[in-house]
């Protein structure tokens, strides 16, 4: 009796049975796709014979010489940086504005966070309608303000298309930053501010010397989580522009997807997605190390 008792505790105290289901599923979801992608990147689909053929380094050589890939990478980085800068600055400004107990502010904060649970594909369609050159709200407003000629189709003009997509992105995800920054602002201690007030510091000095440094961990987490999502942007470009006009909004994810499923270049698509994966991993891990983000 006593022996089984001891044995039961010993067995149940091992983390293995608790973690096993998770490990099995994650291996299927991460390790397997990784290995499969590597394997696929050395092969190419032959549509006529409906088989895969070993092509050695051909996909990797093609990648190196593919101007379309380099342009997609450029677009991805541009999208990444512009969205991140806007979302951080706007998010911080709005968080500081709304971080007050004024009439109705609780409801305002709840309303703002609604954008986060709308499917991005549907938000993209929503902005597609609002940016339509014939009857859209956005061209109308820009036209009235004299910023843009009415007849300019935003999403079909190469210099404006990325901005047109970014409007949807920034609209949907700035509230994410607002919520996180607001949670950070709530947790700041009051004493340093009181001391600074007595010393006669200006509000800008307090923001620069107190708020920003104390918020650095919160900002790092927000940048990390949003950055991971930004680098693999797919939904908005797929529904709003399909990468066009030309290559103006082609991102790496979209390019990889199209190569695989539209052009049946399975091997090349896998190569592209692998490159995207490796880049996210490297950037995120450097970021985690540098900013000491911990879970």
């Amino acid at each position, binding site marked *: 009796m006593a022996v089984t008792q001891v044995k039961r505790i010993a067995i149940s105290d091992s983390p293995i049975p608790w973690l096993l289901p998770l490990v099995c599923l994650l291996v299927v979801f991460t390790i397997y796709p990784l290995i499969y992608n590597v394997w696929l990147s050395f092969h190419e689909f032959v549509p006529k014979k409906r088989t895969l053929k070993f092509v050695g380094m051909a996909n990797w050589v093609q990648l190196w010489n593919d101007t379309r890939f380099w342009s997609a990478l450029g677009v991805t980085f541009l999208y990444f940086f512009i969205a991140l800068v806007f979302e951080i600055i706007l998010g911080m400004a709005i968080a500081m504005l709304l971080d007050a107990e004024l009439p109705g502010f609780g409801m305002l904060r709840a309303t703002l966070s609604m954008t986060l649970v709308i499917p991005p594909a549907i938000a993209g369609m*929503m902005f597609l309608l609002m940016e339509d050159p014939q009857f859209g709200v956005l061209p109308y407003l820009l036209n009235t303000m004299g910023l843009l000629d009415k007849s300019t189709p935003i999403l079909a003009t190469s210099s404006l298309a990325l901005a047109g997509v970014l409007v949807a992105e920034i609209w949907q995800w700035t509230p994410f930053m607002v919520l996180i920054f607001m949670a950070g602002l709530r947790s700041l201690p009051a004493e340093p501010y009181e001391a600074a007030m007595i010393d006669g510091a200006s509000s800008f000095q307090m923001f620069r010397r107190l708020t920003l440094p104390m918020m650095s961990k919160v900002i790092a987490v927000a940048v990390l989580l949003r950055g991971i999502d930004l680098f693999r942007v797919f939904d908005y470009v797929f529904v709003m522009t399909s990468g066009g006009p030309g290559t103006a909004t082609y991102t790496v994810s979209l390019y990889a997807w199209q190569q695989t499923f539209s052009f049946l270049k399975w091997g090349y698509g896998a190569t592209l997605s692998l490159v995207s994966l490796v880049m996210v991993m490297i950037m995120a891990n450097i970021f985690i190390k540098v900013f000491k983000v911990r879970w």
Partner: protein
Amino acid sequence: MHQSTGIRTLRTIGGWLVVAAFFFPIYFWTSVAFRNSKDIFNWPPKFFVFEPTVKNFEQVFGVSLGFGAAEAVTPGGGNFYMAPRLWDSIVVASMSTVLAIIVATLAAYSLSRMNFRGRHEFVNWVLSTRMMPPVAVAIPMFFIFKQFSLLDTYLGVILIHGLMNLPLAVLLLKSFFDDIPSEIDESALLDGASRWTIFRRIVLPMAKGGIAATAVLCFIFSWTEFLFVLTLTQTNLKTVPVVSSTFVTSIGTAWGNMAALGAASIVPAFIVILLVQRHLVRGLTMGSLKQ
């Protein structure tokens, strides 16, 4: 900090204006769902005044609300009644949530309570799986699903959505379990209770609220997911976001019907905000920030 009445007034006005600007697209979209095409395609665009109609909803959902006959919209020639598609979304999102929660509560409990070598590295590994670009998973999954006849099946999409939500669920639940003092576990262990009994009888009931919040977030991430469903299904099932993209056809876009679908898909958004507002930040940051 003390602020003068002037600043408070300015701040109130500023706050309302900013949120109104962010809310406008949601309002506009919903209003389009209630418009006739002449009010949708009008220039200058009509912001607030239009002739309301429920025709778009009747067409999309294939039901008559008593304001005229219901006809199915047929972009691309297919039957487009939406009710089955909403059902697809609900089945996929709820079943994948169940899967993620069962696997994640077990793992999160041991990560929160048991000290073993490599625990920190393990947590980092779980987090790193969240960094996989969906396209890097979707491509190999397409081929393995093809091999096991999982393409275009509920089981396939449920599995992939469950897997997709695992890192979030594990890290979030771990942070909720960490909040429950481990002294409770230890005294129960001394009394001879097994880990399993403690988990079932003590920790799970105490973490109910956190588990519910995690479940709601998993549900919404599955509800909004696009790329996997687009890639791994054909005709048997389609979730709402994927259907929305098929409304753009070579013969034009059925904007009114699209908007009706969009408006219907925003309903879960309202519910979620009501249910998990308190836990939303924690969920979105996977528990790395506690509120």
